[in-house]
């Protein structure tokens, strides 16, 4: 077999009807690719309806994977190989086709009716609209049917296997082994061996078909990436968040409590944690978002590392309770997996538009700590970081992740528990010196007391607290003092977080600023331009409030600063208000989609060239 090994990285996209099993095909391919040791990043993109109307563009579900030996910082822009299981899947990607890319279509699905439903005027396979692409017309449905006709399965079960045909073809294209997927099916359907056999057979049929037809480009081997030694596994951001929370509880020597209500795209954190009751995690699926966070506040009061998980609309409902956590100065981790807003917005699409809500969305002067994660695997460390700051500084912490990295995946270098730093909750131990609101000199954090401890009985609540005693107080001077103390306490977290780093030379024509889950794409875009010798630098924020100590310094010495974010300029506003001496230009994208390297580079080049 002819093989090529000179390809650095490849982008593949599986696209089909939302019931076509594209997410499964994509994740099985990811799993094998991860095991080979490639760098990889994935991006699932699906409609919010469970089964959107069949054959329509609105109902197309996609799974993109970018994998390679090096240079993989994000799921990438347009695919090199697009698998379109029906005309709608082709139509949905119509405007995002890379020149000369390979398009594999299930030709059986291109009936006149399906073509019309997808919104094509004529059959795109028959006119010359795809002339510039390498189109492989594979009879996926019919070959799927004939390959397992003798198994005696009903038609529905048969057709359900066709995603495996596509997967088999892609495995051949990139010379990847089938064993792992075969094992997966044998295990998953151990009680239904016929279903396992059908899936495996169809995958092998697709594999053989790809090998047989000459129209396909030759099989390519993507060499494993050069990585730091260690054990790796593929992880989505939501899984990493869940595992990070488990680790944090262990390091803080507290039980983990999750009080939550299901909401897209945060629910997978609940799904993941609930699998691990063996670890002692206490899970409460509440009657609503409010009860979710309130139960977490109660659990925090009672001494657990307490967490609530949600997305924008749920955050809105939790607002009053977050204020209570601020007033009672209890540790609390609030994970907001952002999606498109406002209101119900775009539940399954990605956006970074809940920053203002996190920073300001409460009544009264109500500061708290806001963090964000930058990649799927960084959700692990930032979940630990949010927990650490919460219990050491006695404050609620909001961790902003986003759909793009929550559902996306990349290899994570396994961190064993002993490799992680200890967390030291600010627990009360000395009754003599203790009062409910007496504070640590350095952090200004009050002490955490566990109900059940004799001698420390006390009452807290949402009414203004008297300094030190924590008794209810309406005194004007006390209120002013407490407002300042709560603000200072959060500000002092700055002494306990890393300095902001910059990729690039010190003085530059252009500094690119990012935050949150767009790190990989921004990094890739800037790296590319730096390689071309462009005078550009990059700094990416994971600590949003308070900002790292050296932030002002980072912004100095650049001709221009551009803040890139998936909203209408919220982080730029945040920076502008704190650093009025700099001019923060904006590059905003608000389409429910991540940035593309190409569009970023185009913008950066314009900014670099403008006088």
């Amino acid at each position, binding site marked *: 077999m002819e093989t090529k090994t000179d390809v650095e990285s490849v982008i593949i996209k599986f696209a089909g009807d939302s019931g076509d099993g594209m997410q499964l095909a994509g994740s099985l391919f990811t799993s094998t690719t991860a095991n080979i040791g490639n760098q990889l990043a994935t991006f699932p993109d699906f409609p919010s309806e469970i089964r959107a109307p069949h054959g329509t563009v609105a109902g197309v579900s996609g799974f993109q994977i970018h994998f390679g030996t090096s240079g993989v910082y994000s799921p990438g822009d347009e695919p090199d190989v697009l698998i379109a299981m029906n005309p709608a899947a082709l139509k949905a990607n119509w405007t995002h086709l890379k020149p000369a890319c390979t398009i594999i279509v299930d030709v059986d699905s291109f009936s006149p009716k399906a073509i019309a439903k997808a919104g094509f005027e004529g059959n795109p396979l028959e006119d010359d609209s795809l002339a510039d692409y390498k189109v492989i017309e594979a009879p996926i449905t019919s070959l799927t049917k004939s390959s397992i006709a003798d198994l005696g399965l009903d038609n529905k079960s048969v057709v359900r296997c066709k995603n495996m045909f596509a997967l088999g073809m892609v495995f051949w294209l990139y010379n990847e082994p089938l064993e792992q997927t075969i094992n997966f099916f044998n295990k998953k359907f151990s009680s239904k061996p016929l279903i396992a056999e059908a899936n495996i057979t169809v995958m092998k049929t697709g594999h053989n078909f790809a090998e047989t037809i000459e129209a396909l480009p030759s099989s390519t081997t993507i060499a494993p990436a050069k990585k730091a030694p260690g054990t790796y596994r593929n992880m989505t951001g939501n899984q990493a968040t869940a595992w990070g929370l488990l680790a944090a509880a262990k390091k803080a020597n507290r*039980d983990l409590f999750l009080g939550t209500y299901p909401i897209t795209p945060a629910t997978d954190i609940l799904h993941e944690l609930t699998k691990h009751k*063996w670890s002692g995690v206490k899970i*409460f699926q509440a009657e609503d978002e409010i*009860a979710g966070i309130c*139960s977490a506040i109660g659990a925090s009061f009672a001494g657990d590392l307490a967490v609530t998980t949600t997305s924008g609309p749920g955050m809105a409902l939790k607002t009053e309770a977050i204020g*209570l956590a601020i007033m009672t100065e209890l540790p609390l981790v609030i994970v907001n997996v952002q999606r498109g807003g406002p209101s119900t917005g775009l539940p399954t699409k990605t956006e970074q538009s809940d920053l203002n809500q996190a920073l300001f969305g409460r009544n009264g002067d109500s500061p708290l700590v806001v963090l964000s994660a930058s990649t799927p695997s960084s959700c692990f460390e930032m979940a630990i970081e949010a927990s650490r700051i919460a219990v050491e500084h006695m404050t609620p912490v909001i961790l902003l992740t986003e759909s793009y990295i929550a559902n996306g995946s990349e290899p994570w270098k396994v961190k064993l528990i002993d490799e992680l730093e200890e967390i030291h909750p600010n627990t009360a131990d000395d009754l003599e010196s203790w009062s409910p609101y007496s504070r640590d000199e350095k952090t200004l954090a009050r002490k955490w007391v566990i*109900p*059940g401890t004799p001698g420390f009985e006390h009452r807290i609540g949402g009414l203004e607290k008297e300094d030190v005693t924590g008794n209810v107080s309406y005194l004007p001077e006390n209120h002013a003092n407490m407002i300042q103390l709560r603000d200072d306490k959060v500000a002092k977290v700055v002494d306990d977080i890393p300095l902001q780093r910059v990729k690039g030379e010190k003085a530059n024509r252009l500094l690119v600023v990012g935050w949150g889950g767009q790190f990989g794409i921004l990094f890739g875009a800037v790296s590319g331009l730096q390689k071309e010798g462009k005078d550009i630098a990059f700094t990416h924020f994971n600590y949003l409030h308070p900002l790292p100590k050296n932030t002002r310094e980072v912004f100095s010495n650049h001709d221009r600063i551009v803040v890139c974010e998936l909203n209408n300029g919220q982080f730029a506003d945040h920076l502008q208000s704190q650093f009025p001496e700099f001019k923060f230009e904006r590059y905003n994208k608000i389409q429910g989609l991540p940035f593309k390297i190409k569009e970023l580079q185009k913008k950066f080049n314009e900014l670099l060239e403008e006088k």
Partner: protein
Amino acid sequence: MEDAVTLKPKEYASTQEVKWCPGCGDYAVLKAVQMALSQLNIPKEKVTFVSGIGCSSRFPYYMGSYGFHSIHGRAPGIATGVKIANPDLSVWIASGDGDSLAIGGNHFIHAIRRNIDINLLLFNNQIYGLTKGQYSPTSELGKVTKSSPHGTVEEPFSPGELSIGSRSRFFARVVDTDVKMMIEVMKEAEQHRGFSVIEILQNCLIFNDKTHAEVTNKETKADNQLLLEHGKPMLFGADNNKGLRLNGLDLEVVTLGENGISEEDILVHDAENPNPSLQFMLSNLKSPLALGVIRKVKDTTYDQALHDQREEEKQKSKFKSLDDLYLSGNTFTVN
């Protein structure tokens, strides 16, 4: 240490000055709670009072135990977290009719449904006191208040009906004028494992005075109160000669000695019957008003079930540590 000296009731009090209006029914409830805890000999560090917003929700500040004055309607959420995190605590909620049945209605019904081991004191004065006199979800139809000068046009909730409809395992009703009854019912609620609702007919001297007078007045109470006791016939009245019997699907008040009625015709209270039909009717009875423990049924508690499930998973799981988890499944090693 186990045989520590029993705390006196006043030792359950905090040092804070109690700021309810003079003559408010809440004082009697506070006293009853402190006496009940003292009689049960529960160390005060083991007690946590959680409340929402409203006059009665100031309750935790006046207790020397652990306490949490939270936000409007959300006490069941907070208390649920406390109990799950620390099941050894005796967890109580102090809440009013607005707090539990209006803004917190959703939490109220779900806490009952789950049967988590918490006691809820429902201070029902049928009015909003803290906001100075608006009608509440338990105000009677037509009630004239500051926010209903022409009378309300909405039917009230019956807390008993709502509780039992939400699958309550323990529902009791007491009056704030009878401290002895409150103490006994509170003790019973605390010893019952599960979510216990105690509706307290409480008088708001300022905004809704005498709303429960028919039931609490010395002159009228004998004929208007039915004091329920498990296993005892449902007899009441100044001469204890009135009783309840079942007539078809309705409760009927009858008099002993009239129309050949004897004590054998009178219903015997069965609070422990899992079938709530009769208890439901009792909770809705207007005259006489049923007091005491109306329903008390043993069942699995949420906190226990959650705990047992974790223990079972601990035994069953192939993972013994987080490292096991992190290294499980598909991993690959780079040397």
